[in-house]
């Protein structure tokens, strides 16, 4: 059985990759992911906006009330250095590279094109094998046309790809008017892989305190339907590799995504829920399925049920949605 694959030009022992999550915040977690069989690790995302806020907050707290009252001209000792991000993040890349053999993919969310490039270069310098650009933004300005949002995202990808020597993946949101066109444009902008899809924090309402509290909902196996569709549609139509993320909870989920055309399948929620060692279970299930269905390699499976290879290509298209509903209605007990 050959599980090996490549992703972003990097050889991987398995298509099961750890996606950006708190599991990779510490070196120990990264080591455990490798031990559990992860083909590669995408580090947790470095959010430049958060760094900026943290630095500003630190500066605020260290200077507030100082140089004002004669007895207390300051309130904290002044340490010589801080290990705040990005320093801590870059250090983690270095430590991870020194400690594990699997590829380390750094994940970045920047603010302006210039800042994206700067941080990306620092990550590469720290040793990252590849970068994942996490295009994580929720445009809320009603006066901002979608075309501008798209142009901005493409500019970032172009700028980073031009600036760094390592392969670059782009993690997308599904909320574009024409996903396939955007995928193609990102491809053209230099992305070596498209990671489908980003999952946003969703606001919730706390009914006890009547407050809005954003939180992250872990994915469920049902979540994979969205990447499944788009990977199947895009497979063979864009040059970039396609990575699936969101909804891989069992070996069979990985099988489905690979059949749809995923180069790798990424996991976070299932590992957060069941522990890192659960990765072994998923791999075992994947192998069992391949064994039972007489697949010899991941490469053999990839894209076997993509839209271009699927017996019924329309199954992935909109019309099918209508049909499915009709079918459902018909079958429903009266």
């Amino acid at each position: 059985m050959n599980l090996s694959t490549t992703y972003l030009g990097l050889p991987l022992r398995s298509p099961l990759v750890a996606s950006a999550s708190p599991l990779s915040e510490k070196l120990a977690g990264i080591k455990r992911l490798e031990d559990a069989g992860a083909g590669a690790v995408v580090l947790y995302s470095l959010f430049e906006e958060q760094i900026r806020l943290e630095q500003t907050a630190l500066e605020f707290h260290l200077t507030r009330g100082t140089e004002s009252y004669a007895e207390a001209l300051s309130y904290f000792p002044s340490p010589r250095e801080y290990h705040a991000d990005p320093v801590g993040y870059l250090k983690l890349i270095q430590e991870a590279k020194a400690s594990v053999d699997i590829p380390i993919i750094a994940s970045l969310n920047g603010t302006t094109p210039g800042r994206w490039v700067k941080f990306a270069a620092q990550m590469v310098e720290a040793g990252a094998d590849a970068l994942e650009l996490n295009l994580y933004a929720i445009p809320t300005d009603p006066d901002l046309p979608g075309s501008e949002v798209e142009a901005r995202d493409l500019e970032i990808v172009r700028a980073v790809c031009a600036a760094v020597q390592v392969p670059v993946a782009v993690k997308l949101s599904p909320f574009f008017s024409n996903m396939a066109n955007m995928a193609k444009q990102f491809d053209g902008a230099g992305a070596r892989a498209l990671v489908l899809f980003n999952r946003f924090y969703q606001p919730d309402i706390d009914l006890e305190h009547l407050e809005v509290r954003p939180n992250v909902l872990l994915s469920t196996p049902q979540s994979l339907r969205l990447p499944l569709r788009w990977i199947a549609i895009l497979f063979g139509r864009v040059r970039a590799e396609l990575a699936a993320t969101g909804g891989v909870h069992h070996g069979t989920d990985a099988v489905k995504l690979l059949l749809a055309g995923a180069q790798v399948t990424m996991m976070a929620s299932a590992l957060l829920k069941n522990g890192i060692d659960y990765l072994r279970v998923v791999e075992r299930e994947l192998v069992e399925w391949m064994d039972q269905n007489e697949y010899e390699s991941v490469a053999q499976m990839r894209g076997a049920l993509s839209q271009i290879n699927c017996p019924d290509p329309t199954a992935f298209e909109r019309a099918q949605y209508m049909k499915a509903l009709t079918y459902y209605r018909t079958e429903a007990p009266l």
Partner: protein
Amino acid sequence: MIREPEYMTLDGNEAVARVAYKLNEVIAIYPITPSSLMGELADEWAAAGKPNLWGSAPLVVEMQSEGGAAGAVHGALQTGALTTTFTASQGLLLMIPNMYKIAGELTSAVFHVAARALAAQGLSIFGDHSDVMAARSTGFALMASGSVQEAHDFALIAQAAALRARIPFIHFFDGFRTSHEINKIALLTDDDLRALIDDDLIADHRARALSPENPFIRGTAQNPDVYFQARETVNPFYAACPEVVEQVMRQFAAQTGRAYQLYEYHGAPDAERVIVIMGSGAETVHDTVDHLNANGERVGVLKVRLYRPFDGARFAAALPKSVRAVAVLDRCKEPGSAGEPMYLDAVTALVEFGQFDPMPRVVGGRYGLASKEFTPAMVKAVFDNLTQAQPKNHFTVGIHDDVSATSLDYDPAFSIESPDTVRAIFYGLGADGTVGANKNAIKIIGENTPNYAQGYFVYDSKKSGSMTVSHLRFGAQPIRAPYLITAANFVACHQPTFLNRFDMLKEALPNGIFLLNTPHPPDKVWETLPRPVQAAIIDKKLRLFVINAIQVAKDSGMGGHINTIMQVCFFAISGVLPRDQAIAAIKAALEKTYARKGEAVVAANLAAVDNTLAHLHEVSVPDRVTSTLEWIPPVPASAPPFVRDVLGMMIARRGDDLPVSALPVDGTYPSGTTQYEKRNLAQEIPVWDENICIQCGKCAFVCPHAVIRIKVADAAALEGAPAGFKTAPARDTEFKGMAYTIQVSPEDCTGCGICVDVCPAKNKSALNYKALNMRPQAERLEQDRANWDFFLKLPEVDRRRIKVSSIRQQQMQQPLFEFSGACAGCGETPYIKLITQLFGDRAVIANATGCSSIYGGNLPTTPYTYNHEGRGPAWSNSLFEDNAEFGLGMRIALDQQIDQARELLGRLAPALDPELVTGILNADQHDEAGIYAQRERVAALKARLAQLESDDARRLLPLADVLIKRDVWIIGGDGWAYDIGFGGLDHVFASGRNVNIVVLDTEVYSNTGGQMSKSTPRAAVAKFAAGGKPAAKKDLGMIAMSYGSVYVARVAFGAKDEQTLRAFLEAEAYDGPSLIIAYSHCIAHGINMGTALKNHKAAVDSGQWILYRYNPAAQGTNPLTLDSHPPKLPLKDYLNMENRFKMLELTQPENAAALFEEAQKDVQARWALYEYLASRPYGHENGAS
């Protein structure tokens, strides 16, 4: 060969600490202003592994008090370590017992002292020589330095001399004036230190140490037969000491080129008049002497460097033979003496060793107490006095003494400032970063150009919204001018609100520059200036520059920090450096300063530099005054005369002009004076929406400044209310039919917003709108000022009608602690305010030194006030270390007086109404009604006693008031309770006396800037715990509970306000010692003060702060009640809310991980223990016996 030295701009404390750190192995310290920084720097350097001269980092230990530090120093010295300490003032006094021992045992050591005033009629943190003079009989040598450079140099000279002479030294320099002055100095190198410090002498020091390999005993008890002789054995060492110091000074001069003498004369060789002086004042005299001699006078100064051992022969020999009159200036006061110490020494020396014919006349004078300015004008007055046939002796200079006529007149206009020195004064607000920016400016000039620079900063007495005044000098020659600038080429006003309150242009020189930060555009700003400001600009032909720095700061991502912007303005227009060079230097300095804090901070600052230059404008000054705006008086004209004429002068920064007669003779000041100082600090204030309010009282409960008040009133009382005065029908049945009102004092509010945060009442259809909402103060000022005045006139709610156990009603009680100078959003003051609401009309308060004594008792205005009957808290502060004992003394006195009064009453009973006597003796005063009734009875008694003609009646009359219940409250912070005052506190626990102790637990020494105490929790970063405190917080409550007879409660008002209230009521009711440990959020925690109650809640939810009450009065049941739930929030979630913990993750992530884990274990173990204790069967519970 003497090398060209490296120069650096630094303050006196750092100048000393750099040398002391290099030359010692053990440093035992305790924080005290103004010396704290020396210990803090040493600790930071040690934490970073910076080596001393011999390659290893000294061990720095923070002790529980200066007494403890001295003990540790003594022990370390006896064990052979080179050891030092840094202290001042009361701290030095606490070291004195050990100092006798250290000197008596001829031990080489140096104590570095930032000399400071002692607490007498009042405390002062400022500089004079009272402390070192109090230590002059310990046997320590006393060595005085007078400038930052000298302080740096003498730190080495003193250490070298101590090793050679075997006599310990106090090296002292003037607190603030030298310790906090920034100046450009030549640094000593390690080679310089090695050249002066003899390794053989260190070996000798070690050889004298205690060692079991070579056992001996030291510290015997000696009997009358030999003590005296043994005391005299040291004489040869003292006799040799001056020679030793002189040798060291010679060696130092050879090494560095800087020559000093023990008694250094400077001036005309044929001077007839000489001033003898030590410390920074000597620098002022030095320059004035040069000025006067250049103008044809013949005067001189004798600078005393070595004051003990006092070498009379050398002293006398140092004076020119021509001298006819000598003035000896002491920076201290010894009441009742024949003269101040150095004066007496000088007289003795001249009598014993003077070879003059005729003998010069010697007079003594006092100057500069508590950092009172000592200027060339005053020096001239002293020299002028010496020209008199009968010069005034025992004079004072620098004040106007209209009581004892001691003071010399002087001409304030006399100035000797060099025209080559650029002088600049900056008026800033504490929070705006002005001082920090100016410190940077000095460094830029000092370290990027051959020029010299000096900076000195004057701070306000309030912790929030205070004014800072920066005095900066720049010039081609070294600057020795240890006095404030009175003639400035450049004046900057960084806060437009100062414009109509302070005369900032008084110091501006003609043709100078005035820089104003203003929200008004350049073409409109002239109209906004008050008349006197316009007049000064025109009369002095000042150039006026303006910038809207707040806007530039906002646009550059700097928040409210205008520091960089104003600094750029200064460099752009002052001409102190070529503009381009200055801007480049600023940018380089900003990158250097902020690099480690992150790129975002650097970027914002650099953007601010560029934006500033684009928004700085020169205003074309009209040729005539058009404004009709006048100065705003510091207090209203209706204020009482003392407030208006005395405190008002202090508020207006003219306290220096007050004569001696204006001030109380014994430190007694009237209560309730903050009400007259309207500080108008808030940009936004809370505004009440009566339709949404649920009348819970929480807003008033949490308000740190007592600016939000509640009353209920009858309709009749509301007649004449201003239009817009809001009321709502009172919801509580007890007040049915009355109008309920909440009112904010717009001019006293600090705008912290904590009331809005706590407000639980929200508009159902728009949940971001509450019953309280912040609105711009400016738009509310007029209406709310009228409302507030009317509110104050409404009658107070009858205390007998208020259900005090319910916050919604209890908060109608009048606070008798209001508008303090505490930080905006302070976490301590709500507790104090609560005490004064509940018990203020019968409270005597002992307050430990610390934040609470500063915002409670720092002049000019003080917050403890009185009610409409004239009753209120009687407050006093003794010291830091003795507060529990101080309070116990009050209790004992009251108990004795009560016994005495009852006894007298019993004896007088036949002459009195029997019902009255019985009523008084058997009064039940457990509630307001009972106390009210007793007050009426005592009033009747006093009326009757006044008519009686008996000794007993005359004795009882002044005592009768003690028959009304009086509470003693002992209040202080954790530094006092856990550390320096713990011994006394423990004794008070054991005393069984009825005192109520409140520990305002901020978990650090807040007042001196956040040093670790034993209350600091594990993993918190504090000064002296830069790597996170490794040990767990001391459980003070558990210690108190172990007596079984102490009421103990742990409270956090933001987590459970009703529990807080209940604890205060129970503590007061308990007839014995009670202790309340009160979680007090603090600016030193690094939190958002406006939402600090969330931190209370998280502290409790995480189990970090368990709420409980332990009431020994519980009859037959377990006295311990837990008032909080088992930990339900991961501790890390709480720790991450506060910079004091979060900072550790950023600086030492591995350490943070380990300590956070330990801290989480602490939480579990602590909860398990308390749960066990609270659930133990007790008395007859569960059948236990």
